[in-house]
């Protein structure tokens, strides 16, 4: 083994030019793969953030909701039990679950929505989807603030008692502008809906089958957990999510394999040149009684060393320039020597199998 390593290292030193070029190619391929992985992970995070900002795209409503009324008034006379959120979470049917209780109130001559938002469930660690509420007061929409002449710190009258304005939202261009947000339990108490919800907002997850009619599938699956509940699926944000994910996946999956493929092709070419250069050496070794396998191991040892060296250098570069390890790093360390040996295998086999007499005559 020691003699084999000595033989391989000696040859690498002797033909250092091709060794450096081949190692450099492996380094470039590994670095591109590692950077592509890092970019993909960054893109995935960015995608998650963007999709979070797009908002929820599913609304689960009580079975007796008049959907026309809901679209007009954003309220329903029906109710869901509060444990409906637990049941949906256990069923794993959605990415995020936000329990909501909502009712319209008249205040200061205007009609507003009083919205109670509960703790987000199922994957709520990555930032809140809904406007955040505060235990120390109400968060109000810009139209509410404008019409009632309120600002942070003001006191506002609501059914069930006055509350201090904790924050005023910037104009959102949505129903949020005429909404008053409070913690779920507070709004339940003020509207007399303790232990009940008017809707559950949810984010569609990628847990369902790839089918043409995801709404029908969702309706069926939700129905198993909450019989008669209705599901509204907003198609536009759902489609926007799907396309964004597809774009991020395509961008992430292309660069690394392409770089690896190009590098492997060039290394394969170098392997052929190397074997052509070493025909006489192969002939001498075979004449001295080395078996075909032994000669093959000597020839492949070069590419194994090139792969290992390339992977280690690439990992060093990646460690210096990128934050955070990922499993791909260890795969690169393993895959680079394997790929280098794989592309060198055919030329090496041809070299080791060459007729020693012909090789010596050259």
């Amino acid at each position, binding site marked *: 083994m020691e003699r084999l390593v*000595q033989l391989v290292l000696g040859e690498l030193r*002797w033909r250092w030019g091709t060794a450096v070029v081949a190692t450099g190619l492996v380094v470039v391929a590994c670095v591109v793969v590692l950077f592509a992985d890092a970019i993909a992970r960054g893109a995935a995070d960015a995608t998650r953030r963007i999709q979070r900002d797009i908002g929820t795209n599913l609304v689960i409503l009580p079975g007796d909701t008049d959907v026309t009324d809901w679209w007009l008034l954003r309220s329903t006379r029906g109710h869901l039990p509060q444990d409906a959120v637990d049941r949906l979470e256990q069923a794993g049917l959605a990415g995020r679950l936000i329990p909501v209780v909502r009712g319209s109130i008249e205040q200061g001559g205007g009609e507003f929505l009083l919205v109670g938002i509960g703790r987000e469930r199922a994957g709520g660690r990555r930032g809140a989807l809904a406007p955040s509420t505060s235990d120390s007061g109400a968060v109000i929409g810009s139209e509410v603030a404008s019409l009632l002449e309120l600002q942070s710190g003001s006191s506002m009258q609501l059914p069930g008692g006055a509350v201090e304005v904790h924050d005023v939202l910037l104009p959102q261009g949505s129903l949020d502008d005429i909404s008053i947000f409070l913690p779920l339990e507070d709004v339940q108490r003020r509207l007399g809906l303790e232990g009940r919800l008017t809707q559950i907002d949810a984010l569609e997850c990628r847990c369902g089958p790839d089918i043409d009619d995801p709404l029908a599938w969702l309706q069926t699956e939700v129905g198993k957990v909450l019989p008669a509940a209705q599901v509204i699926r907003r198609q536009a944000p759902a489609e926007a999510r799907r396309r964004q994910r597809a774009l991020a996946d395509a961008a992430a999956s292309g660069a690394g394999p392409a770089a690896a493929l190009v590098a492997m092709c060039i290394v394969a070419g170098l392997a052929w040149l190397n074997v052509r250069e070493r025909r006489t050496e192969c002939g001498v070794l075979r004449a*001295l*009684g080395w078996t075909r396998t032994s000669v093959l191991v000597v020839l492949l040892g070069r590419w194994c060393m090139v792969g290992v060296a390339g992977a280690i250098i690439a990992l060093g570069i990646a460690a210096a320039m990128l934050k955070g390890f990922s499993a791909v790093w260890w795969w690169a360390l393993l895959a680079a020597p394997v790929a280098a040996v794989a592309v060198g295998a055919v030329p090496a086999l041809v070299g080791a199998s060459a007729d020693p007499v012909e090789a010596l005559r050259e």
Partner: protein
Amino acid sequence: MIELHAVSRVFATGTEPVRAIDALSLRVDAGDGLVVRGPSGSGKSTLLHILGLMLHPTGGVMELDGERPWSRTPAWRAGVRRGRIGFVFQGGHLLPWLTLRDNVMLGGATADEAHELLDRVGLQTRCGHKPSQVSGGERQRAAVARALAGAPDVLLADEPTGTLDAENACAVLDLLEDARVGGAAVVLATHGAADPGGNWTSIKLDHGCIVTPLETQS
């Protein structure tokens, strides 16, 4: 030790087959020295490659200690080449990135044995040198040392003095003679007038046939 009975080797190259060795019979025993002479293309190298189990005869029978090597496996023949046959090539064919000692070790010698062999060929001070750092004569002597690794029963030398001056050629031939005296069967192919002296048998090949009767040099 090695017997050839009407051995032929035909190369199927071009439109007309080339008969490099034509029904050649000979026998080489331990302690024998055989000089194979002849012009370029007469079949000397082909004969050595057949004797070295590197080239399959296309006709006739070859025996090595009563065994027919070409009916055995390639691994068996590789083992025989490694353990019982030493080969000295024209120009040495040392690997340029290895030291002379490491080159000798390629023949199967340990580091100590390699030192001892290089000492025997007068290169004890050159063990750590690369082939490019020594003269042509020293390279060829190192090649002889590599061929002597493992004390082979058969030593085959293909034009070992072809590129050497008279003094270095003489030194290499002395080494071959020493190997013969040591009990090895030595076959030397040359197109020149290389004369190892001693009790060597000489044959002349032309177009793969022995054209000069066997004779013993004095």
